[in-house]
């Protein structure tokens, strides 16, 4: 037990150190190479000026956004996996991102909205609708929800929303331009002016999330047991779900739909801390920003002087991890009903 927690502490400390260094790198790398001294000068001396310092000053909001989005998406992923008891849950898979994207496109095309602070509200509604639809479709039929059904429902709705999006975009060349950049999920163009208005939303989401954590631990045991332990299922689910929707909507409005962060980080965190949802959440809050800022740095580094958007990098990194998870997992199709009653014998379900 002692050795275990020493190892955990060591890992966490390394993660923090990595995070700080990655943030520094984030300030260094870019279309214009700068040196570490110039970075330190830019950070510490408000009167400093010069092109190098300007570049650095632009990267600060970008890095900050990366931290925020990584935090939000990873934590949302933890919440979703806990609420759905589905190891494959993630904002993209569960329809939040596609719903939000479609809503944003509609608002761009028909209401002329252009600023994230405007369409974040639309994203909230779209994300919420998407999530509800996915849950509804995925829980139909025998056995309630199962990881497979939810994933499929998410993919179905994702495909539907994306066709709708293409359909709306086709005659609107003006919107296509702004949309396609947003759609890939990227941090370029980040400005504090656009980020700051949304900070309260990030904060609200995180606070709600933290409130729901104790209930989520009970939920993991199964509905019947959770109720038996005095947990209010509906309230916990609602709070956790709302927190996830808020966090995703805020991220998606600022950075576009970025996938796989919410999927993969909770698993990595769980490997470090074990199943206690509170610990997983805390570690994910650390690893999420680490992944996202690293992905951004990699994207900028590989294709200097241009960059590869962070959404692409997370997809390229995340998809193989997802596939690996599926291969290792095995019985991903076990329904919630089966899991509830899965007491005694190793009943081998037919493949």
């Amino acid at each position: 037990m002692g050795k275990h927690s020493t190892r955990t502490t060591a890992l966490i400390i390394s993660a923090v150190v990595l995070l700080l260094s990655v943030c520094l790198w984030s300030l260094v790398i870019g279309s214009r190479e700068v040196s570490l001294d110039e970075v330190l000068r830019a950070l510490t001396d408000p009167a400093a000026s010069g092109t190098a310092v300007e570049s650095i000053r632009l990267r600060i909001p970008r890095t900050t956004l990366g931290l925020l989005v990584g935090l939000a998406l990873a934590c949302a992923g933890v919440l979703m996996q806990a609420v759905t008891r589905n190891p494959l849950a993630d904002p993209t898979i569960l329809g939040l991102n596609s719903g939000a994207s479609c809503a944003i496109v509609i608002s761009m095309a028909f209401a002329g909205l252009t600023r994230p602070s405007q369409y974040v509200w639309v994203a909230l509604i779209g994300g919420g609708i998407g999530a509800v639809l996915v849950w509804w479709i995925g829980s139909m039929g025998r056995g309630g929800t199962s990881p497979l059904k939810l994933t499929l429902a998410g993919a179905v709705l994702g495909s539907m929303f994306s066709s709708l999006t293409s359909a709306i975009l086709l005659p609107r060349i003006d919107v296509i331009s702004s949309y396609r950049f947003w759609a890939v999920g990227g941090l370029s163009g980040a400005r504090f002016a656009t980020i700051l208005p949304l900070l309260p939303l990030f904060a609200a989401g995180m606070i709600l999330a933290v409130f729901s954590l104790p209930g989520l631990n009970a939920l993991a045991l199964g509905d019947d047991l959770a109720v038996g332990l005095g947990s209010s299922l509906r309230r916990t689910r609602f709070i956790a779900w709302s927190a996830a929707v808020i966090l995703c909507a805020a991220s998606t409005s600022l950075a576009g739909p970025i996938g796989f962060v919410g999927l993969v980080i909770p698993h990595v965190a769980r490997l470090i801390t074990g199943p206690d949802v509170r610990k997983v959440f805390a570690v994910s809050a650390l690893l999420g920003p680490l992944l996202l800022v690293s992905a951004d740095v990699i994207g900028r580094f590989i294709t200097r002087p241009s960059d590869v958007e962070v959404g692409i990098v997370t997809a390229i990194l995340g998809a193989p991890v997802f596939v690996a998870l599926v291969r290792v997992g095995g019985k991903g199709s076990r329904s919630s009903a089966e899991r509830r009653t899965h007491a005694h014998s190793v009943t081998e379900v037919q493949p």
Partner: protein
Amino acid sequence: MPKRSAETVRLKTEKVHLGYGDFPIIEGLDLQIPQGKIGAIVGPNGCGKSTLLKALARLLPVQSGSILLDGQAISSLPTRSVAKIVGILPQSPSTPESISVEELVARGRHPHHGMFGGWDHTDDTAVEEALRLTGLSDLATRAVDTLSGGQRQRAWIALSLAQHTDILLLDEPTTYLDMTYQLEVLDLLAELNISRGTTILMVLHDLNLASRYADWILALKDGGAAAVGSPSQVITEDFVRSVFRLDSRVTRDPDTGTPVVTPLAQHSLAALRAKADGAA
């Protein structure tokens, strides 16, 4: 007139090793399944009953040794030919949604058709007979997933019946059913053996049901056969103690003459209360 073949053996194993990867489950088992009789496989959880049955039905590969049907390795025979001789009812089979009983049973005729379908009156007859034997003729148009547990199990048995096989293997046909349905299913299987001479081999959890309904019992433990023989021969107090680690009393059922296993008195609420009162 049921055709009672002489004591022949069509399906047998020779020194067969079964397992998953490096995990051995059955080691070096020699087993002969007598034709025209009802056999039951019993044993503690995880001893490999289901694995053995699946291997006998060629659903699982053997690691070494062989499983022979009519003298040939079962894996080398065309699977369709095997399907005309050996039928299997797996554990918890998955029923497609809203399929009717008669459509499900009709699937049992598949091995008898070539690539282009070709349904004829023998198929009709087989399905009808299967429905009649299982008492499902009136429920034939109902959806299988609207039936009770016992009825659903009978529908799956009817599918195997329509298949017209000489040998029928059933993996835990009575688990998850309550007592009435358990007896319903076992009575049906017994009738089948009597009227058609079908060789039956089933995995059962309940020793007492096994004694009542089986001609012979195979008990598995630690990867091998702990006992093979008639219920009276196999089910003894020593047997129950060594295989199930349970102290029991084995008596003879006054009506059927088959052995009945009863746990010792100490395993009861009355005894435990008495003990607590005595100690106080």
